[in-house]
């Protein structure tokens, strides 16, 4: 599991830029190169001013009417496209979502999937190279490594080994009448928890406190292993 912090959600400006870059990418893919051809095809929600914005940020280069990406823009846009097309595959192949709903969903996902989730989905789907609409999916690190198994992104605390550290993501509240007490004892989402032992009961370190509890409670705490 990567030690990188979770990617923060993109701001509105970033989302607009990503959207614009993705649309330009798809046009370039189709063989269109000039700004005049491409601009009308960009999503109307972001169309106005996005070209000027991208150009002034140095993300796209406009040489004699032809559009090309800067190295930074290439990096950003390939991962956006990769996320979008992996999402399409997942939605279509695994979740059986009807075609007309796939695009709006995938357009959301392309901005929000974290690198960990993206490579897990890619691994889960067996590193697909084409989207359901026959577009190429840019390969990621996991495809080059040929990763065959995917570790769950979240796991309940009772699956963790002695000595492992994790970040608490959420506590199962329906199963847990002790919710309020757990929170008050310091088991709060976002805090780092270290498993000191698993037997005879779980013992964990949270901040400056040590807590002991049984596997019933351990099973209701969901964490992101670090």
């Amino acid at each position, binding site marked *: 599991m990567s030690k990188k912090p979770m990617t923060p959600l993109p701001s509105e400006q970033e989302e607009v830029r990503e959207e614009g870059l993705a649309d330009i990418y798809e046009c370039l893919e189709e063989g269109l190169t000039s700004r005049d051809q491409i601009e009308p095809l960009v999503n109307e929600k972001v169309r106005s001013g996005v070209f000027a914005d991208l150009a002034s940020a140095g993300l796209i280069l406009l040489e004699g009417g032809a559009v090309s990406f800067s190295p930074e823009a290439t990096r950003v846009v390939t991962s956006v496209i990769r996320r979008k097309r992996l999402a399409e595959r997942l939605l279509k192949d695994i979740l059986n979502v009807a075609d007309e709903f796939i695009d709006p969903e995938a357009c959301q996902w392309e901005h929000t999937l974290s690198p960990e989730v993206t490579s897990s989905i890619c691994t889960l789907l067996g590193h697909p190279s084409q989207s359901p609409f026959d577009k190429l999916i840019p390969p990621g690190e996991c495809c080059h490594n040929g990763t065959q198994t995917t570790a769950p992104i979240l796991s309940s605390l009772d699956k963790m080994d002695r000595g492992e550290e994790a970040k608490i993501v959420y506590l199962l509240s329906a199963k847990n009448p002790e919710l309020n007490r757990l929170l*008050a004892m310091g088991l709060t989402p976002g805090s780092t928890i270290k498993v000191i032992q698993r037997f005879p009961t779980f013992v964990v370190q949270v901040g400056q406190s040590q807590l002991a509890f049984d596997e019933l409670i351990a099973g209701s705490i969901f964490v992101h292993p670090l």
Partner: protein
Amino acid sequence: MKLGSDLSMDLNKSSENRHPHGSPGRLPKRLALVGQPNVGKSVLFHALTGTYVTVSNFPGTTVDISHGEGVIEGQRWTVFDTPGVFSLIPRSEDERVARDFLLEGELDAVIQVADAKNLAKSLHLTLELAEFKIPMILALNMSDERRDRGLVIDTKRLSDLLGVPVVDVVATTGEGIPPLRRLVPLARIPTAAPRYDAQVGQSLSKIASTVLPAACSRTALAVALFAKDESAWRHVPAGSPAPSLASLQEEVRQIRNRFVRKPEMLIFEARQHVIQEIIGEVQSRRGAGSSSWLAHLGNLAMRPFPGYLLAGLALFLMYAFVGVFGAKVLVDFFERIVFGQWINPLATAFVQTVLPIPFLQDLLVGPYGTITMALTYAFALILPIVTTFFLFFSFMEDSGYLPRLAVMMDRLFRLIGLNGRAVLPMVLGLGCDTMATVTTRILDTKKEKVIVSLLLTLSVPCSAQLGAILGMAAGLSWKVLAVWMFVLASTMMLVGWVAARVLPGGRSPFLVELPPLRWPQPSNIYKKVKARLKWYTKEVIPLFVYATLVLFFLDRFHLLAMIEKVFSPVVVSFLGLPAKATEAFLIGFFRRDYGAAGFFNMTKQGLLLPRQVVVSMVVITLFMPCVAHLLVTLKERGLKATALISAFVFSFALGVGGAVNWILLHTSFL
């Protein structure tokens, strides 16, 4: 001091007559210590009032509200010690006691005692307290442990952010107590408040305004109702705007239902945001903090290896200190030298010259005399044993080992329908079953409380009795002690196992906070042992005297021989004991440790064979503990449960004793 009587008295006072922010003089003002479990409220209480309540390094030691008087900065205060609360939305009976007291105790000030090394957790309670609108002070206790861990807290800045005085304290050594006393008159209502998001905030003010008439703690109540705390309804005053309680409840339910996420979580996050900002500003880390060998030992004590080994070692040390040093060396000294050669001969000579009436002479110094039997048993046989036990037990309590024992015992306790938390009442039961029965309040479900009450009554010997029993076994083969322990452990597991399956209800999950292992302060151990011995002499010795008087009159009127004859089929034939053993059982009805002392004495006089020693040890251990215990069980569990428990315990004690006798007679183990 019990909460019930205290509160009913206060509620009758009209609240207009009180001066919430203090015209000096007249009424003693009212100050409560509030805080999470095991943060040192009781030690501070002692420092402020000079009154002693049982203090230990185990969460849940205080289950009632105690009070004491103290003069602080020239003003008389009544100080209240409350049970520890993780949160003011209560989950157990002791937490509810504390919350109710904040609502109804008409307090002039609150000192929040907090764990300085767990600032985030402490501040959650501060923000909860803020909504009760009571002037308060924040005492950051255990500042020594905070320093050891390299944590620095800017108390001045913290005080500004919260709007209340803040002070660093080390309650066990007294550091920081004088500044704390100076700050008591400066207590303020906190200005810091949780940052509720708009929708939550609206819901809370709606609950507060439409459901509750103006009261200073209305925000606190609204939060509790929003967080689905059913016990808070009791505090909703009659005459609220809405037509009926049921319609109010329906309204709150609807408000709750508007939220997808749990209201508890939303409220928690509203506090968490504020707290993270505060901590970012006031707390920093200097150096990594050293991890001591005590911390390592603390962790080792919970691993299967060497944890169980350490538990065994603790047991052995107890045997060596209480069973050998207390029950043999000290008892020999007191009984043979102090009472045998000095007090009893002197008292006898004195009584015989001053009181020429033989009846009164026998009453005081005869074979069933108050001095020669009751006081000799109490001071020469029991007191040395109880003292050594309390010394040992207090050391264990203060060291913080007991919660670790709870971890080690959790799986075993699951078999009998309990979880590891039940270790506290069970081990405390080794000190005194009566005290321990009160502590069952820290358990979460009724089923757990009944099972622990039953096992305490049946098979957990209290210190005095334990000492006498260890003393009985000390001179004999190890097999005597082994058989006794085996019979006791297996009956306990069997009875608990059956009870866990017969009684309705479930087991609650195991969850306990582990305090760091600490080297106990000798002065605190001294105070604690002193308080317990004082309690013991006051509580126990009168019972010894009454029991001896009963025995004396029965003997006078030749009833004793008759009773011995009547019970001889049971005592002599079934249990295989000498007829004189009936006397020990008779006084055992008053207190089973007195009965055990009787058997101890018989053993020392060589009246019992090893087999008979084992049988009497088993029966007297399984017996009802004492009259005081019976009364407490009656109060905590009610008449029906007590009657059932008692009937079961008597027949079971005799039955098991008979079985052990039969088995030992027909085998050549002893």
